[in-house]
């Protein structure tokens, strides 16, 4: 479905060539939810941008349904970290304009119906006339998710979608996302970039752990076999959850605790 083949992505900077990621190989099946996790600046988003077609790999290629990705397209819906709603359009128009641009063959009524359907799915139909400044961060991100789903893409690309939200809103939006995924018969492939371990485990089938950049590579790919539908409260008590969490923590953090020595130094000072 998505096939990332040995890509390297480098940028030209005044100081010369900067390699963000290299030797990335990843196969993602249809309907799979995959998270890419790693520290800031490890090139997680860069890989996602290569799939979305916003940046081009300097080596290797990205295939989507056996066709090479040559730019952004309506077969991929993107949810950006900072919502990226157009502030001069209301909630409904923000989605309508995207639908109108991405699905030009549909009639106007069909497009309006689609917008209504997805706005109802994320419970924002009553807020459709509001402008982005009038709604909360969580509502903005729900609008952005509805917008990405509304163009009915094969693949959803989420770039740290919940990074700017508080923990409670984040939790409800995880459910919201999985609900949308279920309502579309779990047919949509979701690739998500995150730095939140719990979020990655709760949502994903597989978690791609990155090494630190520059020239970051894939460190390991963790499979998550937790049964679906998942329940936030219950899965944390499952043995497998604990094991995966432990493994991810070890992979991502060199030091999990503060040295006693450091503590005494602090006290003396």
């Amino acid at each position: 479905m998505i096939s990332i083949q040995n890509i390297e992505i480098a940028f030209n900077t005044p100081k010369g060539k900067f390699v963000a990621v290299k030797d990335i190989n990843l196969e993602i099946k249809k309907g799979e939810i995959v998270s890419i996790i790693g520290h800031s600046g490890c090139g997680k988003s860069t890989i996602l941008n290569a799939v979305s077609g916003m940046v081009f790999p300097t080596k290797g290629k990205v295939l989507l349904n056996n066709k090479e990705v040559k730019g952004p397209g309506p077969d991929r819906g993107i949810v950006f970290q900072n919502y990226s709603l157009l502030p001069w359009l209301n909630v409904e128009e923000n989605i309508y304009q995207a639908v109108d641009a991405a699905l030009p063959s549909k009639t106007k009524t069909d497009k309006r119906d689609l917008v209504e359907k997805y706005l109802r799915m994320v419970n924002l139909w009553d807020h459709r006339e509001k402008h982005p400044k009038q709604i909360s961060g969580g509502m903005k991100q729900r609008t952005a998710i509805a917008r990405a789903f509304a163009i009915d893409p094969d693949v959803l690309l989420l770039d740290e979608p919940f990074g700017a939200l508080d923990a409670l809103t984040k939790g409800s939006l995880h459910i919201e996302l999985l609900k949308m995924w279920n309502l579309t018969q779990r047919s949509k492939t979701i690739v998500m970039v995150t730095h939140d371990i719990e979020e990655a485990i709760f949502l994903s089938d597989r978690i791609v752990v990155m090494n630190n950049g520059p020239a970051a590579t894939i460190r390991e790919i963790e499979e998550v076999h937790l049964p679906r539908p998942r329940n936030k409260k219950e899965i944390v008590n499952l043995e497998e959850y604990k094991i995966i969490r432990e493994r991810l923590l070890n992979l991502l953090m060199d030091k999990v605790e503060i040295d006693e020595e450091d503590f005494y130094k602090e006290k003396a000072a």
Partner: protein
Amino acid sequence: MRRTIALTLSSTRDLFSGSNEAGLMILAKIITLGKGLLFNVLGFGVLVGIWYIVSLITKEALPTPVATFSVFWELVKDPFYDYGPNDKGIGLQLGSSIVRVFSGFLLGAMIAIPMGLLIGASSFCKKMFYPIVQVLKPVSPLAWFPIGLVAFESASKATIFIIFITSLWPTLINTAFGVASLPSDHKNVAKAFGFSRWKYLTKVLLPYSFPHIITGLRLSIGVAWLVIVAGEMLSGGIGIGFFVWDSWNALSLEKVISAILIIGIVGLILDKGFSWLEKKVTYEA
């Protein structure tokens, strides 16, 4: 400002205990407004005072405020009389200036906004055209007057031409700046969802740069209003600038000062109008 409202609120609350909140709010607003007006009047009072002293010192080489205001009153009492080409009411003079300013200004905007969009959106166009803007912008618009005369063979059209040139730069530069500062987030949305060029222009680029464009227009009309007076002094015929020059030739400083006042008030109204428009089109991000 806020502090004064709070103060007046608390003091009025003591006076009118029992009346409702809304009434108090309105009263507080009126009091603040009244205070503001009082300061304005005070400022003008000081100015008129100095003026009076100067005219006394110069033995009325500078006309006194009283003499000036009586002339001013004569002028505004019957603004639309027309006794031939050299004797027209102040309203007619002003009207013809305003028509000229707006003709030049609108022509300028029609060129400046598309050019600004181009220069802001394409680095190629910026490299090509921006140096031209930088060279021509500092030139006093009056320097274009002879060229206008040659091109249009009419002093009146040449005046419109210099207003046109004047209005170009602020609008062009502001538009280009607005377009160039479009956040990449908005661009990415257009890219990700495959917006057509037209949709990108009408739903992303223009709505984003609209407030910048209006700011540019406001600056342009301000400069245009400055330049029209000088332009009409050169062109003669009719107009508020010509009126100032004509009054000077007739040795009526009272009329000159009255005209200055009127020019200032019209300039203020133009600026307020565009500020209002600016606020109207500014969305809150």
